[in-house]
């Protein structure tokens, strides 16, 4: 029975599933990385994802282009990011609780809009698989990496882009400074609030695109609470990845790999109890967190409000 799991076809299938499954986690956790590196913890990612998923779906459902749907998601994500920034940065509410408030707001409003504007679960024609010419023909690797819809490629493209922005640009330097020591950054003329507003908008946009990747990319439907807590896992993946883009990529892939593996184990009728199979991703997460905890260097000002002259 276990032999079936180690055939080339199955291994390719597992890795292909892994790459696709990682997409929403990757987009949302990269966005969260920006926020946390600047010192703002946003637990409202799941709510932003739901709003992004809904607006992208609704725009496409109304007959508009898929890219207009993505833009709508980005716009609503930025607005949600601004709202979070206003509450957490300007009003200086407790970041954890205001994040939960934002999540509930997104959950409730997306459900309400769905009921009001659409009313029943409908399907749309979302982004189709877009095999990259030549690369998709490479045996094995081609199918695993280069045979997905465009939002999947975009998610992986965001890894080096995010790394570059955080580590090689002036904005990135400001983000890191504000997250590490906002008082010092302020004395050097960096607008702490301005930087945090910016990271909240970037994070919001990416979380919303993560939602769109579900509703018009991977599933092509919208259902209330369709993220099912995925945004909270994305927040955990930022810790898992030690606030580094490569770490977030590794965490997203590992979590998705174990998820893909458990689906294949069950589909091939390999005699592992399904309860054990569905627990595997979470067990793996805890194990890895336990072994990496010592190396974590979190932003010193994470989840701390900043007020001048305090």
């Amino acid at each position, binding site marked *: 029975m276990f032999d079936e799991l180690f055939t080339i076809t199955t291994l390719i*299938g597992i890795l*292909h*599933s892994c790459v*696709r*499954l990682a997409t*929403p986690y990757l987009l949302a956790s990269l966005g969260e990385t920006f926020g946390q590196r600047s010192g703002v913890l946003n637990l409202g990612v799941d709510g932003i994802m739901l709003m992004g998923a809904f607006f992208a779906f609704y725009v496409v459902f109304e007959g508009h282009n898929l890219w207009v749907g993505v833009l709508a998601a980005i716009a609503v994500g930025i607005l949600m990011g601004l709202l979070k920034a*206003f*509450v957490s940065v300007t*009003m*200086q*509410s407790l970041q954890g*609780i*205001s994040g939960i*408030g*934002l*999540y*509930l*707001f*997104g*959950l*409730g*409003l*997306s*459900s*309400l809009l*769905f*009921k009001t504007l659409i*009313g*029943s*679960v*409908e*399907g749309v024609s*979302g982004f*189709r698989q877009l095999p990259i010419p030549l690369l998709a023909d490479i045996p094995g690797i081609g199918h695993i990496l280069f045979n997905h819809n465009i939002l999947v490629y975009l998610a992986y493209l965001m890894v080096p882009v995010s790394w570059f922005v955080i580590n090689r640009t002036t904005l990135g330097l400001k983000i890191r400074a504000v997250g590490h020591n906002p008082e010092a950054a302020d004395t050097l003329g960096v607008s702490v609030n301005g930087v945090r507003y910016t990271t909240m908008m970037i994070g919001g946009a990416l979380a919303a695109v993560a939602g769109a990747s*579900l509703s018009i990319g*991977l*599933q*092509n*439907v919208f*259902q*209330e*609470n*369709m*993220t*099912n807590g*995925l945004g909270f896992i994305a927040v955990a993946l930022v810790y898992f990845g030690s606030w580094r883009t490569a770490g977030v990529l590794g965490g997203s892939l590992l979590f998705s790999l174990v*998820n*893909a593996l458990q*689906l*294949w184990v*069950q*589909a*091939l*009728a390999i005699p592992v*109890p*399904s*309860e054990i*199979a*569905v*627990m595997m991703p979470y067990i793996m997460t805890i194990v890895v967190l336990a072994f990496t905890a010592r190396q974590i260097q979190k932003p010193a000002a994470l989840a701390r409000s900043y007020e001048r002259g305090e």
Partner: protein
Amino acid sequence: MLRPIRISMLIFLLLLAGCGGSEEDGEAAGAEGGAFRVAIVMPSSTTDIAWSQSMFDSLVAVQTEMGGEDAMKIAFSEGMFRVTDASAAIRDYAAEGFDLVIAHGAQYGNSVFEVANDFTDTSFAWGTSSDTGADRGIENVFAYGAVANEGGYVNGVVAAMLSENDVIGVIGPVAGDAKLYIDGFVRGVTDVKPDAQVNVSYTGSFSDTTLAAEAAHVHIQAGADVLTGSAQQVVGAIGVANENGVAWLGTQSDQISLGPDVVVTNQIYNWANVVTDMIAKIEAGELGGTAYKLTFDNDGLRLEFNENIEIDDEVKEAARAAIEDIKSGVVDPVLLEEDDDNDD
């Protein structure tokens, strides 16, 4: 200084959030002379195209049959996946004087009996279950359930006839929960094609549409050319079936809107007769004590073909024959264990 503003902002956000999480028909909560008042507490939404929607649609059908909102009022609380929230909602509805409070989930059993003991003049119903509490002296609780393996069996027969690869994928929510439907389905497939392979996978969740969608991808890559599954999570899987042109067999509610070209059949749960009978009993002064089961024989289960796609007459005929065989007892897809708390 800013603290009061901060707190008010937070409260504002939380209030806004609360407005969409669960809904009630506000009017229904008011006193309505003459109208029969039904409240329902459900784990997912009225539009989940699965378990919750099946009951909500049936309630609306009964309301229409009775003459609209003047004759019957419906209040509902959806998204009650936390039993503690559901328990509070059940108690609230009972306290507000509703004639019938439906707790639409096996997980709500303890809450129902607890509240039913405190509100003996109110009628309650819950499912999936056959336990009305009569053995414990409780007289105001109805129980209900669907013999889902009947439709599972017929869908299995259809799947076996449609499959060319003889590989069929099943996507369940939580192991044990959809057991009735899946057991019936597997039996239907193997009765037609004993050598066909039925791959069953569980996502571990009722609502994880992402994992269900990926499970559909996995089954298709593993060779499946017909898929089925249950619970509200299947919307993602139907989307994948639609994208790949793979046949989908639905259960609980009508799922054609999601895959107009691939959804071949739906086993529909029709609770209307159950609700109508409960209302009649309540109006006659009988507040509980009956356990209902949806079957093909009592029209609680219906198998509907998608009329918009071409399906071989042979397949339709085999499905009809299977239903008749189940009704007449020639085929027994019932692998029931006593008191099955599953399939919601």
